[in-house]
């Protein structure tokens, strides 16, 4: 593997604004090679968006404590001063959001927002920036791109807005694209179009993508590798194919079992993981998944659990991996 473009090492994020500190991200390490797409999946509150925002240092600095190291293109993000940071945001790494209607400024046209971003990072004229904005709109296949540039966000449909958001993110030719649940707010057919567009752009432009989602289907569609998060930790990481075929962490197993699949009998109930995720302000001792795990024994309820290597580029954070291999065989 070539040296990674994005490298996260032992990232910890604790929010200290409330009455009790909330440990949102705990010991997360993740690498993304140039041109590679990695999906970070997990349920709400598992820390996937916080991890992504940490890459841009967008978590509120006064109310959070951040440990670990984040390197992007060989530069230490945590060590950047204000000026370097804002030059890095949008130019080296860009972000697309879940709900573009909320993430775009409602009182500026899309063209103006793209032009503003380009001119923030590059010394070019307004006309040149506008020409590039038009190119981008055509690149993400927005119909009648020229007139759409003068639209306000509320004048577009959801799918169109997300395309515009992608165009905006790509406006300064970033090498790393951070996508925070970019298809969650869209309806199913539009979801697929946006996923295919992302995949195509990634291949054509050689983008590294960190893709956060709770939709395993979407993750498989876009990502080369998948990392599963639970209670602020990455519990399993593997290539998309390995993760689907031979999941090794009980949580991943449970997630895969809870999906609807072709072999299901009509009317059958989906399998669900019993219990609820732990309170991040009051994490249990030991493995955070132990209270819900069908394989947990006494040893799982005390002490931390380290990442175990289970195969080439496949690792899982579980003490009882010898049992999960068998359990995976039973899975559909």
């Amino acid at each position, binding site marked *: 593997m070539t040296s990674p473009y994005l490298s996260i090492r032992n990232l910890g994020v604790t929010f200290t604004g409330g009455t009790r500190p909330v440990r949102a991200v705990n010991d997360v390490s993740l690498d993304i090679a140039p041109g590679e797409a990695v999906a970070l999946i997990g349920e709400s509150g598992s820390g996937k968006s916080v991890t992504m*925002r940490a890459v*841009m240092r*967008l978590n509120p600095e006064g109310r959070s404590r951040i440990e670990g190291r984040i390197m992007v293109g060989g530069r230490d993000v945590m060590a950047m001063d204000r000026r370097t940071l*804002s*030059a*890095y*945001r*949008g*130019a080296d790494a*860009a*972000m697309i*959001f879940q*709900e573009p209607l*909320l*993430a*775009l*400024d*409602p*009182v*500026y*046209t899309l063209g103006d927002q793209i032009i*503003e*971003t380009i001119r*923030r*990072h590059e010394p070019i004229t307004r006309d040149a920036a506008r020409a590039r904005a038009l190119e981008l709109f055509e690149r993400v296949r927005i119909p009648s791109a020229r007139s759409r540039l003068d639209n*306000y966000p*509320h*004048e577009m449909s959801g799918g169109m807005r997300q395309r515009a958001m992608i165009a*905006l993110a790509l406006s*300064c030719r970033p090498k790393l694209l951070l996508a925070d649940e970019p298809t969650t707010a869209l309806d199913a057919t539009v979801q697929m179009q946006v996923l295919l567009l992302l995949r195509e752009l990634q291949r054509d432009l050689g983008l590294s993508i960190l893709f956060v989602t709770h939709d395993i289907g979407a993750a498989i569609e876009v990502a080369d590798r998948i990392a599963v998060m639970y209670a602020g930790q990455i519990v399993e990481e593997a290539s998309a194919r390995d993760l689907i075929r031979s999941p090794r962490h009980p949580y991943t197993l449970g997630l895969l079992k809870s999906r609807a699949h072709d072999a299901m009998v009509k009317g059958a109930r989906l399998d669900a993981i019993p219990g609820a995720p732990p309170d991040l302000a009051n994490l249990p001792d030991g493995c955070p998944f132990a209270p819900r795990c069908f394989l947990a024994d006494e040893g799982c309820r005390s002490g931390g659990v380290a990442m175990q290597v289970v195969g080439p580029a496949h690792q899982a954070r579980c003490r009882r991996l010898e049992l999960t291999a068998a359990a995976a065989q039973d899975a559909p």
Partner: protein
Amino acid sequence: MLAYTIRRIILTLPVLLGVSVVCFALVHISPGDPLISILPADASVDLQERLRVLYGFDRSYAEQFLLWLSRAMQGDLGTSIATGRSVTTEVMRAVGNTLMLASVATVIGFVLGSLFGFVAGYFANSPVDKAASAAAVFGVSVPHYWLGMVLVIIFSAQLGWLPAAGAGPGGSGQWRLDLEHLSYMILPAITMSVIPMGIIARTVRALVSEILAQEFVIGLRARGLSEWGVFLHVVKNAAPTALAVMGIQLGYLLGGSILIETVFSWPGTGMLLNSAIFQRDLPLLQGTILVLALFFVVLNLIVDVMQSALDPRIKR
């Protein structure tokens, strides 16, 4: 934009008609005979009757209203009963004085209020916010006539820096733009500015902290905008509402400054209304209220059009 403006102007016509009806009715519902103030106590019934006919008070209300309205539309608001002068002239001079004072007060209030509001909103719940919010609450709740008197005591009576009353030297009834007249304006304008200052500060604080909590602000930072760049976006998002509040405040100050104008003997609409009410000068009262209401409607129109120019979501 133009179509919206034209439609908005047409929509004000029924409002104006309603305003004129209400303003006419209000004055006639109030008890008391308007002629009592100019008639000698021992006037004969015959004289009373002749004056009543002369002023048109003997006709039906509908007739009086239509007559008054048609004259008003030609710019003739009648003759003041108390002074015998043209109401239009009296009202326009007073409106000019009040408009001058209220505009200056609103500008001061808007600048200070926005400043306090932005600082408080940006540093919500910090000591800076507490101080700025306290200033805003002070502005909204302090009795303005009291503040006016305190300022007069300090700056006129004790220090002798500024004149205490009037619009200009020698009881000048007409404000003009020169240094002498300006010094007469300082105290009343500052007193008056405290009202819009407090309200605008509170509005802007709420607006700014609400805007800053929205996701697009994170979106702007993620694009690499500097804090100054983000600030400009916040300003543009806050501007429509802040301007609307400012316009409405100016409207209130135009008619609602009776206390301050009385404290400072400022020859504006407040003083005029005050004397018209006490003298039961119906034509003057009607005329003043109508002109003030017109200003209010026009101000609202301007605010609406400006808002739609600034916020694309309002148009359509």
